[in-house]
């Protein structure tokens, strides 16, 4: 055994700083890695499903038909983005560890924060790309359906000799309110924000747990709990309900889980209600706060993780 000096003075070195370019390299690699997991065919299938849904509902009246289409397609889109965010994130870290890709990456001058941020951004970029494509398809179908329904309704009014300018204008207003508006894009934005928060939670859990299945199951549980956050808060602040221990554990649960109901604007949009700018700012701010906090905790966990 050599008699190595036990007190070698550390050399003066320039620390490795956060690098957006490095994060982009990791994010881009993550995105292409996920795209190779047959995500694109799934996306195309979803678009075909949306297109089929757009014309598949029986005509009750134009307003209801457009509402049903938006409710269904936005609902499916929400589930798709959350499921994709959770599953993709839960798979990424364990796969990198299993393939030892993580070792080759972290044995380079790559801070661990850059790595987790790159992974998160890669997943979010793919979700965002998917949502942009689906939003475009959804908008086109809605616009097409809106035009067709309006023409059909005007023709019907004409047949019934009720096509007065007022009646036509009223019909135009009804169809336009339920048709393609900016509200649709805000709903898609809200879906993206919700998926981003859930994805960050999944990333945190995948840093703590070694099992992919555990990460997926627990993140789904947190997602479900997150949708009932208001009920949990109500329980915590009701002095007459439950024992102190139950209330404390419920409080901890409320503190851990994100309030995902904050991003629920799909029903409002489907019903033709206008989403105000203030609500969009608020949703975005809340999501940014959640993502920052969860990412910070993820960093604290990952920097200490034994690989």
């Amino acid at each position: 055994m050599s008699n190595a000096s036990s007190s070698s003075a550390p050399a003066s070195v320039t620390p490795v700083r956060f690098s957006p370019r490095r994060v982009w390299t990791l994010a881009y690699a993550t995105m292409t890695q996920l795209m190779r997991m047959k995500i694109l065919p799934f996306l195309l299938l979803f678009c075909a499903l949306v297109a089929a849904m757009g014309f598949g509902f029986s005509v009750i009246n134009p307003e209801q038909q457009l509402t049903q289409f938006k409710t269904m397609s936005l609902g499916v889109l929400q589930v798709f983005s959350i499921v994709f965010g959770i599953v993709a994130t839960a798979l990424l870290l364990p796969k990198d560890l299993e393939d030892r890709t993580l070792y080759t990456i972290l044995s380079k001058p790559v801070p661990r924060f850059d790595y987790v941020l790159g992974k998160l951004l890669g997943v979010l970029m793919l979700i965002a790309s998917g949502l942009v494509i689906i939003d475009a398809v959804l908008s086109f179908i809605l616009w097409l359906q809106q035009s067709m329904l309006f023409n059909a309704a005007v023709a019907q009014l004409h047949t019934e000799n009720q096509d007065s300018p007022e009646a036509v204008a009223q019909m135009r207003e009804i169809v336009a309110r339920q048709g393609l508006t900016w509200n649709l894009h805000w709903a898609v934005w809200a879906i993206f924000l919700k998926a981003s928060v859930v994805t960050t939670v999944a990333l945190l859990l995948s840093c703590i747990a070694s099992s992919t299945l555990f990460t997926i199951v627990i993140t789904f549980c947190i997602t479900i709990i997150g949708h009932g956050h208001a009920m949990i808060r109500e329980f915590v602040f009701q002095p007459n309900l439950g024992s102190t221990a139950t209330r404390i554990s419920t409080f901890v649960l409320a503190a851990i889980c994100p309030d995902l109901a904050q991003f629920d604007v799909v029903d409002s949009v489907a019903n033709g209600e206008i989403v105000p700018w203030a609500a969009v700012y608020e949703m975005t701010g809340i999501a940014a706060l959640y993502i920052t906090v969860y990412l910070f905790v993820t960093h604290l966990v990952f920097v200490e993780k034994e690989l």
Partner: protein
Amino acid sequence: MSATPAVSVNHLTKVFKGHLGKGAFRAVHDVSLTVEAGEVYGLIGPNGSGKSTTMKAILGLIKPTEGDTSIFGIPSMEVASRRSVGFLPENPYFYKHLNGRETLHFYGKLCGMAGDQLKSRTEEMLALTGLEDAATRRVGGYSKGMLQRLGLAQALIHEPQLLILDEPTAGVDPSGSRIIRDLIIEFRSRGITVLVTSHLLEQMQEVCDRVGIMAHGRMVREGRLEDLIAVENQTELVFENASPDLLAKIDALVKAEGGGTRLLRSGHPRTTLERLFIEATNEPKKP
């Protein structure tokens, strides 16, 4: 040679905490070693002897329970220490959707390389590891030997002064194994320090300047290979054109014989690294 050692491991102990009722596991116990700049150092030991844990500690992938490790004087837990290291893990896999060239670009970019510097360095590494013809093929279709060579190329992409190779010839056929051995010899000639683990002791004997043998999480032998494999209580005489009679009367004949018989060398005969390994790792476990 630089005064600062390439790798310094001082009294390293690593205990993994037990989970779900399992007791703690001491993977490495009070290991010290120094790898001088420019040498090839072989870390050998049976499976589970603590070699990989020691390597991970050197790379800052795990935190020592006790002791410390440094690379060119910079503590391993600092990310900056990895600027001068290239690492090839055992049986590496890379992103299957990338081809060989893209893989090297990816790792080069992580090291802050860009533009012409990255392109020329990538081509240089592809040429060095003999992967030029496979540069545009997806990594998913690479053989094990090609993956190992790509691993070497990515480890070298940022021109590190130190290479850490964990079982670089594992699962590789004899010709691929020889290519890797030749590359290690070439790295040494280029002044690159190499810390390598392998089960192929014959190859380790060919390439290493110094070796450390680990068993049960401890360093059981360490030193210059020539010194370690010398058998101290025996003397070796090497003759040229010796007859059977000469061998029978060896002491007298050496002094009396002239002509074509010459005493070429006298000293300690060498055992093989393999014998030394078996002997060292079969010693009773210390408490």
